[in-house]
């Protein structure tokens, strides 16, 4: 019995914390196995909410029971508080999320509030799949319905609100991505949001490319982050824009490959970019007959450039090593045709290898060789 009162009190403490600190943006567990002071387990420091772990084994079963028993009852007021606390402690329970969906449909809270709440959960559980599923459900039901022509006058879909939702989602994904290495869930959610909320508009694609640039620089081994950039590039519908971005991306990638040798993620990214470039060029090639002669002349001038690449022994690779410049001098790309030319690409890859510093050259060499093999197998 005492447990029930204690649990109710802790839930009340949670609600008071949220009420008094509306700007809470992070949640975490404070490890505390045994209670020694008669103080609330719920603490708020700055804008961070914490709960001590000793109370979990008492509070969780209580909330679980209450939610399941009161779910179909007539009195929905307690459900909101209980579900909030329950999901902070354990976001993997679909039933609790469904309870919140029901409350949302009864307009107990707005979509934006719910999205912010899920962001708080993600700070503690960055990979929680159920949270992302719920986010998508909310976005679908609150923001995209109007676009599909369903007139639901409960939901006001102003551009400003959609923009706020978009910003909230981007922020949440960013925080979640930082919380766990290669957070596939977070990045794929980000992709979904760009498709659903922003409908892949050009401005959003541009701004996202810009925003994620510094992030990628700090997380070079994050496969999912790089995959996101690939998605952004592939969604460009205008070929000239795509070309421009691909050029910049190759440049950026060259820098990264030299600065951070031996990261498989970066080499994979290069493969993807190459693939994208080839696809894009094929698209160009199909367009008009007039361009084909132009292409032919461009190609012939390019063939003049290529030098026969001598098979280099391992020793000479090491000797070739120049001082690490930091900024890739490399071969500057000027057109998409240069990008897709396999021989030029091999030459550029070699240049990267040469730029790499001695200590890392072995590992870089391994990746280089694999890349060359892949290029050879690659059929346009």
């Amino acid at each position, binding site marked *: 019995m*005492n447990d029930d009162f204690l649990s109710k*009190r802790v839930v009340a403490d949670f609600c008071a914390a949220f009420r008094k600190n509306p700007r809470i943006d992070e949640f975490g567990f404070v490890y505390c196995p*045994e*209670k020694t*002071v*008669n*103080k609330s387990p719920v603490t708020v420091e700055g804008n961070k909410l914490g709960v001590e772990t*000793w109370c979990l084994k008492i509070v969780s079963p209580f909330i679980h029971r209450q939610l399941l028993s009161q779910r179909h009852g*007539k009195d929905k007021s307690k459900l909101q508080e209980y579900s909030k606390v329950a999901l902070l402690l354990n976001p993997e329970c679909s039933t609790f999320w469904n309870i919140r969906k029901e409350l949302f449909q009864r307009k107990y809270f707005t979509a934006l509030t719910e999205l912010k709440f899920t962001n708080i959960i993600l700070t503690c559980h960055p990979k929680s799949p159920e949270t992302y599923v719920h986010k998508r459900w909310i976005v679908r039901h609150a923001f995209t319905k109007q676009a599909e022509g369903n007139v639901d006058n409960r939901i006001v879909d102003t551009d400003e609100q959609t923009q706020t939702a978009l910003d909230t989602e981007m922020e949440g994904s960013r925080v979640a991505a930082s919380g766990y290495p290669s957070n596939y869930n977070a990045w794929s959610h980000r992709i979904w949001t760009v498709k659903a909320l922003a409908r892949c508009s050009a401005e959003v694609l541009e701004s996202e490319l810009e925003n994620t640039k510094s992030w990628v620089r700090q997380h070079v081994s994050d496969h999912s982050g790089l995959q996101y950039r690939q998605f952004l590039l592939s969604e460009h519908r205008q070929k000239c824009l795509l070309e421009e971005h691909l050029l910049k991306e190759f440049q950026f990638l060259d820098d990264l490959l030299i600065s951070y040798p031996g990261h498989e993620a970066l080499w994979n990214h290069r493969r993807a970019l190459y693939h994208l470039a080839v696809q894009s060029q094929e698209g160009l090639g199909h367009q008009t007959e007039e361009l084909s002669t132009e292409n032919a002349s461009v190609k012939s001038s390019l063939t003049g450039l290529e030098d026969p690449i001598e098979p280099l022994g391992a020793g000479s690779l090491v000797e070739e090593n120049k001082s690490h410049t930091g900024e890739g001098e490399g071969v500057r790309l000027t057109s998409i045709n240069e990008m897709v030319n396999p021989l030029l690409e091999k030459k550029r890859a070699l240049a990267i290898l040469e730029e790499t510093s001695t200590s890392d050259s072995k590992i870089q060499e391994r990746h280089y060789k694999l890349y060359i093999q892949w290029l050879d197998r690659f059929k346009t």
Partner: protein
Amino acid sequence: MNLLIIFSYLDVVSLCRCAQVSRTWNVLALDGSNWQRVNLFDFQTDIEGPVVANISKRCGGFLKVLSLRGCKSVTDDALKTFAENCRNIEELNLDDCKSITDSTANSLSKYSKKLMILDLASCTAISDQTLKSISDGCPLLSQLNISWCNQISDNGVEALARGCKDLKVLRCKGCVMITDDSLLHLGLHSPKLTTLNLHNCVNISDDGMQDMARGCTNLKSLCLSGCLHLTDKSLISLSNYCHSLRTLEVSGCCQFSDSGFQALARTCSELRKMDLEECVLISDASLIHLAIGCPNIETLTLSHCELITDEGIRHIGTSACATEVLKVIELDNCPLITDASLEHLMGCHGLQRIELYDCQLITKAGIRRLEAQLPNVNVHAYFAPPTPPNTDGRQRPRYCRCCSIL
């Protein structure tokens, strides 16, 4: 007819099921006399106009008590039919029937002359017109709940006070448009008032309280929680006129201080339940006065009264109410309370519950000692469930189940 007597004990669902058994049972189960008290809370949103209309035709003049709490789809028309058919209705609960408007009160006023208890809480569409109709047509009204009906204003309350002279219970939680004017009229015209709930009626002040107290000297239960503008003058008015006061809830009235409670304790010796949460100005002095003046206190809430110390609790612990009468004491969020307070309360044999959340100077040992002395008490603190009290090595007497029946 024994069957009729048996049916009179059944609830609505069972009666309806019985009515499907056979023709005889149908006639008996649906006999009006079984339907004097009908509670449709469990059906809520399923209840719509036709259901209420049917019930009212079936029950006719037998129906005395009807609860439609939570039935959000019930409309004015349904209730008009109901009022026409069931003229003997005495108690009607329309809590949370959001579709109701002033028209319902009009119907009730015309037909429900015997109405005594009416609950219109959360019927947000009603206005002063409702109160005017009720005051015209239902002179016997003694209990009215208009909580959360935020369109109600002083005009309505004035009409109510003038028309329903027998008014004993009035609950207007959250009726923010009520001001001192309402209180003046209640004081002038409602001398029988025993229960008044003005929770969150923020626009009332000391003057209104004085006018009300002067007239409503039979007041037993008063709630002023959240009425921030009240000062000690209100408490002094109460102490001058309302000596029968038993329940006083003033949580959030942060301007109340020791001098107000000193006055109150001098004359209101019947006080049993006091909620002083967040009355941050009060100190041990108030507790000393209450200990002397109020020997009947059963429930005392002092949450968030940060100036309270062990000394004040010592006086409570040795007061006339302490030994047998005090049941519940709430001291959560009083940071100066230490184990010494628990020592002082060890003589309270009637104590059932004590709240100590966030009293950081309280220790586990102190709580254990209290529980050893008072085995029936529920101590609420943040400590994990306490270990069972020491039995001094004595073996607990054991009973097997069959022996206890024998």
